[in-house]
């Protein structure tokens, strides 16, 4: 029958000697030394991730202690005992699947048999695989036997999850931690196997397998098996990528380039193409994460990337690495990892991936691009504040004097001037503006309006509460006119601090310096209808101010100065 005689590569190539157990030298060296010196312990615990050689090591150890030509550091694999242990037919080497035989009864049975001497070889070896699945009772039943077994018994416990073992078990064993197998070791082993089978291969295909195997040799060999079954007698990178469902590096970099250019649309287009080719979003986000990590590694520690072979750095990749600052890359990694975790449980992985891409291409807009401006502005403000503090120190009485004029060049002086004119003058100016206003400008501002509101809210939530009443009605190159329905909203928005904040946000969002002008909605409508100017509602401002002051004064009269706190917030 077809397929019957075929054995998976990972079974065919199971290591039979300690020397073949690659990447675990810290374990094999210790074990070989112990064998050479005859310092054999009666209980070992092998733990480590999947596919790193725990069970293989246990079997090799069983052979080494029982080898007819031994005991020696390496089994000969030729004598009767070695051969029969490999086949699994030797009575005295017992391999127990603890996950299937996990109850206390099975352990009692084992305990009863331990005391009988081995029949054919020197040691009775019990290999208890997947030992983490034993029940609590079973573990406890094992304790005494594990601590003081008869002299002819060796226990080897193997597990992927040592944290599930009771500490009392662990403390009775010599513990060996197997490591994930390194990139080079996996590639080296794959090479040996391919060459022994005289199979042509692409170097990049080996990298792809090793990447996907993620430190597990069995995974790597499974993949190799699959790739060979798919591609016949040649190993190509494309086949490996098809099997693992990974995207090619080029596709990943194209997406990242879109992200780097803040061009979400083109990144999404690339993504669309990948999905059309049958790639899974989950794999894709994993590949993106890996690529970002590689870029980050390349930027911060170039010598490392060459060593672990992940980096297949070519022109594109290097250019990409140059265009993305480290802070941006870490930020991208954060977003990707966050979405990757969510993706495991969502029924819409693709939409989630798209969200991640949009976020990646968007996050930059918040800070980047305008960052130098913002920083410059902040520095300027700090400088002014320091100056003012200096002045205040020198003349404490000067508090009541008019505020010192802003230093030139800060861009604030003009705003201040524009803030002052309230009613008549500003209206006159506004009439002139009508000519300057453009509908495209208005459309742009309207589009950006939610963004502006959002940012203002982040900066200061109260200002947002005032501004939300307004609606952008006109825009020119350097101004935005906002019409308000309610007077009090308009007036509060006009306050110096608030207005400066809004202008600053608008400047950031629109990408050019803009001044804010406010107007009442009915007034605007009249203006639009080209009717003659009306007395501005701005005239009420002083009245309002006086009234507020009145209230404050009264409050102070009532409660005393200490208890009254004046706040703008409503």
């Amino acid at each position, binding site marked *: 029958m077809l*397929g019957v005689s075929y054995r998976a590569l990972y079974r065919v190539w199971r290591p039979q000697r300690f020397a073949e157990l690659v990447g675990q030298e810290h374990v094999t060296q210790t074990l070989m030394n112990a064998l050479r010196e005859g310092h054999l312990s009666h209980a070992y615990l092998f733990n480590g991730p999947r596919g790193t050689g725990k069970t293989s090591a246990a079997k090799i150890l069983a052979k080494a202690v029982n080898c007819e030509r031994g005991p020696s550091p390496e089994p000969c694999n030729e004598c009767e005992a070695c051969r029969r242990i490999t086949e699994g037919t030797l009575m005295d080497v017992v391999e127990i699947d603890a996950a299937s035989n*996990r109850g206390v009864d099975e352990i009692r049975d084992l305990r009863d048999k331990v005391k009988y001497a081995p029949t054919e070889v020197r040691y009775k070896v019990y290999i208890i695989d*997947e030992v983490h699945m034993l029940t609590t009772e079973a573990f406890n039943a094992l304790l005494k036997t594990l601590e003081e077994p008869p002299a002819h018994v060796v226990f080897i416990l193997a597990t992927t999850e040592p944290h599930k073992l009771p500490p009392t078990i662990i403390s009775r064993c010599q513990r060996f931690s197997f490591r994930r197998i390194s990139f080079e070791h996996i590639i080296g082993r794959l090479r040996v196997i391919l060459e022994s089978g005289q199979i042509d291969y692409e170097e990049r295909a080996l990298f792809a397998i090793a990447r996907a195997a993620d430190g597990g040799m069995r995974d790597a060999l499974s993949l190799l098996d699959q790739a060979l*079954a798919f591609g016949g007698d040649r190993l190509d990178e494309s086949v490996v990528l098809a099997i693992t*469902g990974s995207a090619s590096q080029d596709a990943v970099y194209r997406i990242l380039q879109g992200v780097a250019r803040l061009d979400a*649309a083109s990144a999404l287009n690339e993504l669309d193409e990948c999905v059309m080719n049958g790639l899974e979003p989950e794999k894709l986000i994993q590949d993106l994460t890996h690529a970002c990590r590689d870029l980050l590694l390349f930027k911060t520690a170039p010598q490392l990337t060459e060593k672990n072979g992940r980096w297949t750095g070519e022109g594109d990749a290097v250019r990409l690495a140059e265009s993305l600052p480290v802070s941006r890359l870490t930020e991208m990694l954060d977003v990707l990892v966050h979405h990757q975790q969510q993706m495991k*449980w969502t029924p819409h992985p693709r939409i989630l991936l798209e969200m991640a891409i949009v976020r990646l291409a968007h996050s930059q807009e918040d800070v980047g691009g305008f960052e130098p401006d913002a920083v410059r502005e902040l520095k300027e403000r700090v400088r002014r504040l320091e100056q003012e503090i200096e002045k205040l120190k020198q003349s404490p009485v000067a508090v009541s004097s008019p505020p010192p004029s802003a230093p030139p060049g800060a861009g604030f002086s003009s705003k201040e001037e524009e803030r002052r004119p309230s009613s008549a003058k500003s209206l006159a100016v506004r009439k002139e503006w009508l000519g300057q206003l453009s509908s495209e400008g208005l459309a742009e501002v309207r589009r950006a309006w939610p963004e502006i509101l959002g940012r203002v809210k982040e900066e200061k939530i109260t200002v947002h509460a005032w501004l939300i009443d307004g609606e952008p009605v006109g825009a020119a190159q350097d101004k935005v006119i906002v019409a308000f329905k309610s007077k009090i909203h308009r007036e509060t928005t006009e306050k110096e601090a608030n207005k400066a904040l809004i202008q600053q946000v608008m400047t950031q969002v629109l990408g050019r310096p803009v001044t804010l002008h406010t107007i009442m909605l009915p007034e605007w409508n009249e203006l639009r209808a080209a009717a003659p100017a009306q007395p501005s509602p701005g005239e009420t401002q002083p009245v309002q101010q006086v009234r507020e002051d009145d209230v404050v004064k009264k409050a102070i009269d009532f409660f005393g100065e200490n208890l009254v706190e004046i706040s703008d917030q409503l």
Partner: protein
Amino acid sequence: MSFQEVKGQSQVIRLLQNGLLHGKIAHAYCFAGPRGVGKQKTAMELAKALNCEQKGADACDRCRSCLRIEHGNHPDVIRIKPDGASIKIDQVRQLQRAFSFSPGKEVVRVIMIEQADFMTPQAANSLLKFLEEPVSAMVAILITENIHAMLPTVLSRCQILRFSQLPPAILAKKLEEQGIRKDNARILAHLSQGEEEYQLLDQEEFAQLCRRVIEWNQEILSGKSSALVSIQREWLQKQTENERLPLVLDILLLWLRDLVHHHLNKTGKLDVSVFSEWEAAREEQAYRWNRSRLLLGMEAVLRARSQLAGPMQPQAVLEQMVLAMQEGSL
């Protein structure tokens, strides 16, 4: 019936047939992929091809063995399904006991474990040794929709075959061929449900459903509290509607995605608009919120979608979602 009947999975089929031809069938496979893409069927065909009297890369469908497998009567082709909520360790033990007897001559025993991610940890662990070093000729096929829920140690012993979802464009065309209206087909192709469920919906009813979702979204975007009232009035009124809530949320999510795409589509490069009939509504709704708020909204919908599957009251879930969207936070 043969491998040719499995549509759109040419890569997987090629891999299996190559394996059959060259005698390189592994002893353990994991078929992973979304619902309704042909995993079960492929597993069945593999079992038949392995045991077919006409040895080859495909089943003949005429011999005794093929027919017996087809009808589920073959003693050496075993299917395991969740018993109740999960696959229990006793089921696996029973299987292992059955395997301690040698099989008939020239028979490759096949085990299909359906919804393998529903194995209890004990059951999955007890499969480990069994999968790694089978005692006699056998092929185990673990079938799962959620590969992340499988034990990594189990997966590392299997060859993983990924069944991919058909790309929406192709799926849409397929649906159109089945007589579904073009606009509906486009939307349906983007939803994640299995194909069977599409047929259950009446065409007109589906279009109606989309309209209602879009109107609801209008309410949500404008920040009105009436969006909360709508939950009660629109979506929870009838029992039938209740069962449709996941679909409603999927449509809402897709609509929000359309809005985000509208934002991005300044240059006209993007192939957008799943909802091709709703140009005007999109134009109107898109700029009410900025991009990051829309994204937060989508996240809220996704979360509500997964909560619906849980033990929570649908009304509470939906209300929380609407509030979260309107607050612009999670």
